[in-house]
């Protein structure tokens, strides 16, 4: 017998296995191999004592599907497991997840530091809607790491940004910005919709709260709206007096202190107990199930999304009709090295490119592609295109567009998983149409 002792290794399940199984135990669900859709509003109490126990958070369980639902619960655990988080809370959309995260963190009079390169709807939430609740924001360009530090005020309660900005593909230096946030005693919230946990796990790089629009790559098939916030569990809410709603007795639950009672899951518990109760942006069980179907194939799809995207980058960079291409895989992309560190499994399938001929050419291109769908979504299995200045970001004025890094010649491309040659052929049709108006105007 060999004396050599076998090295101990944890045998917890890996990503692909968790994508299929996490959060669900068939033996507790009549042996159903597939996750059942609990299409119900409410749940029987065993007796009055049981009802009181559920309302007092004395025991786990479901009361009303606005607060929680067993099918949605499987999705929440599954995403928490994939992200390496302690807990998650699913919502009706990505926007409601962001709103819920902010309202769980902030009160009137508070301030947030926010990356300037965000989805247009998110920009409007931070710029126009949150001030109506007394929450003010300072916008900082995502590459201006020091700018995040300078923008922090006494009443700042957090930093928020998209890891890879929509639509310009500028990447936040998440580890450095996390350090800045933590030195100031505030959490970093990251919207990682573009990445999914397959490409990046933000908790490993210092993020404290991760938000996804599950509508995109996680669900992946363009069928269902859903969002989620995930908690990392490392942030110490009790380290300072900035978060009294987390650390002081909460009148709404018999004087409960979320941080003392729930520690690494306190943020999610508060978001559910308070936010879902009072705002109610709950996810339907059918949509939760649809998202679960998508997550089962997440890694398979993301590999294909990323390989197709890299092919499209090469194609676009060598194309005579293209003025510029922005994708983190491009060696001269300003964040190329950072992307290698943060996105080791692939740089994502969002490409921004400039079309020669400006806005007029962009419009012609989009009006003439046939395979690529012109719509306001990303992360579908199908290839999608849009002209942000006239679509997703059209509610911004000129100055805001410029600050957000948008230009009128920019096309946003979400690369699907079709055969790559078919996508390229379709784009040729679009480019030919885009060149025609200029030829006409030059004559």
């Amino acid at each position: 017998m060999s004396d050599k002792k076998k090295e101990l290794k944890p045998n917890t399940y890996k990503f692909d296995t968790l994508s299929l199984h996490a959060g669900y135990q068939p033996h507790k669900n009549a042996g159903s191999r597939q996750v059942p859709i609990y299409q119900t509003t409410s749940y029987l109490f065993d007796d009055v004592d049981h009802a009181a126990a559920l309302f007092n958070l004395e025991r786990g369980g479901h009361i009303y599907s606005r607060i929680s639902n067993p099918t949605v619960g499987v999705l929440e655990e599954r995403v928490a497991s994939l992200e390496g988080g302690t807990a998650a809370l699913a919502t009706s959309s990505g926007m409601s997840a962001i709103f819920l995260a902010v309202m769980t963190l902030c009160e009137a009079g508070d301030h947030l530091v926010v990356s300037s390169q965000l989805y247009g709807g998110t920009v409007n939430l931070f710029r126009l809607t949150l001030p109506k609740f007394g929450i003010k924001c300072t916008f900082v360009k995502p590459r201006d790491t020091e700018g995040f530090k300078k923008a922090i005020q006494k009443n700042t309660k957090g930093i928020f940004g998209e890891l890879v900005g929509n639509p310009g593909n500028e990447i936040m230096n998440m580890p450095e910005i996390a350090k800045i946030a933590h030195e100031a005693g505030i959490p970093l919230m990251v919207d990682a919709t573009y990445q999914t946990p397959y490409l990046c796990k933000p908790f490993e790089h210092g993020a404290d709260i991760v938000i996804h629009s599950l509508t995109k790559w996680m669900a992946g098939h363009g069928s269902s709206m859903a969002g989620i916030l995930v908690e990392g569990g490392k942030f110490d809410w009790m380290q300072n007096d900035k978060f009294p709603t987390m650390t002081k007795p909460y009148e709404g639950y018999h004087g409960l202190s979320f941080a003392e009672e729930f520690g690494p899951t306190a943020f999610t518990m508060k978001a559910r107990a308070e936010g879902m109760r009072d705002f109610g942006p709950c996810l339907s069980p059918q949509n939760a199930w649809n998202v679960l179907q998508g997550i089962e194939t997440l890694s398979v799809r993301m590999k294909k999304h990323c390989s197709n995207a890299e092919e499209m980058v090469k194609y676009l960079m060598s194309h005579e009709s293209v003025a510029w291409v922005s994708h983190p895989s491009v060696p001269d992309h300003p964040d190329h090295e950072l992307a290698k560190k943060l996105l080791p499994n692939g740089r994502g399938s969002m490409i921004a490119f400039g079309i020669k001929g400006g806005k007029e050419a962009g419009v012609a291109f989009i009006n003439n592609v046939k395979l690529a769908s012109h719509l306001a979504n990303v992360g579908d299995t199908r290839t999608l295109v849009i002209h942000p200045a006239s679509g997703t970001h059209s509610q911004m004025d000129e100055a805001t567009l410029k600050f957000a890094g948008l230009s009128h010649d920019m096309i946003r491309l979400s690369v699907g998983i079709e055969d790559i040659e078919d996508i390229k052929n379709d784009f040729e049709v679009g480019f030919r149409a885009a060149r025609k108006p200029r030829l006409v105007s030059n004559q």
Partner: protein
Amino acid sequence: MKFRVNNSEVYASTGGRPFDKKKPLIIFVHGSGLTHMTWVLQTRYFAFHGYNALAVDLPGHGLSGGESLKSIEEMADWVSAVIDAVGHKEASLVGHSQGCLVTVECTSRYPDKIKTLSLMGGAGAIPMNPQLLSLAENNDPKAVDLMMDWAHGPAGHFGGHPVPGLYHINTGTMLAKSRTIQNTLGVDFRACDNYKNGFEAAKKIKCPTLSILATDDKMCPVKEGKKLASLIEGSQVDIIDNCGHMMLLEEADRVLTVLKKFITTNYPPLSS
């Protein structure tokens, strides 16, 4: 709530209700490297039903001050001191894993103070795997990952947390990594490994005792739990199927139901 024992600040969750000296006291003692938060699905119930439920953070753990105690015997004396510090003369004890060693030792040392004893995932001895012990004492996070792997049964590895949205293994990992591993888990594992008095202590216990064991418990297997229970006169045993060592979370409802019946029968609450 916070109070002082042996000149160090102690944190104990009161389950969301204010401490009331008139109510009977139940003290919950956590396992190696963990904190009061492992008890959240038991303490809140008792706190709302006529008891003072104190889920303590052992010294040097969670929100308590001081340094981790180096032996099970010291921890047992410390639990007795907690009863004194909060102004009670007696208490019911509930322990998990290492907390079982502590509460068994405490009950044998202070038989007049301890009215009932509830053990979850308990054994008379918990010898440590030398590699695991070494990893913990060298502050290697792999020690926590291994503990979380072994502490959850096959079903628990998939999740299925009773509180919607919470994921067992990652939550446990964060609790165990919330303070310096070598100062909590490392010291606790060494204390468990050194403790040899469990079976002798068990023979001295005369109060009503309950052991909750789980079929998939790799850390304190059913046969070890039964061996300990067999030495305690009149001890009750409840075995949970498809469950690992973290039964207080993996099967929180079942644990609470059994615990509730046992404690309310043998140590009644203050009726309102």
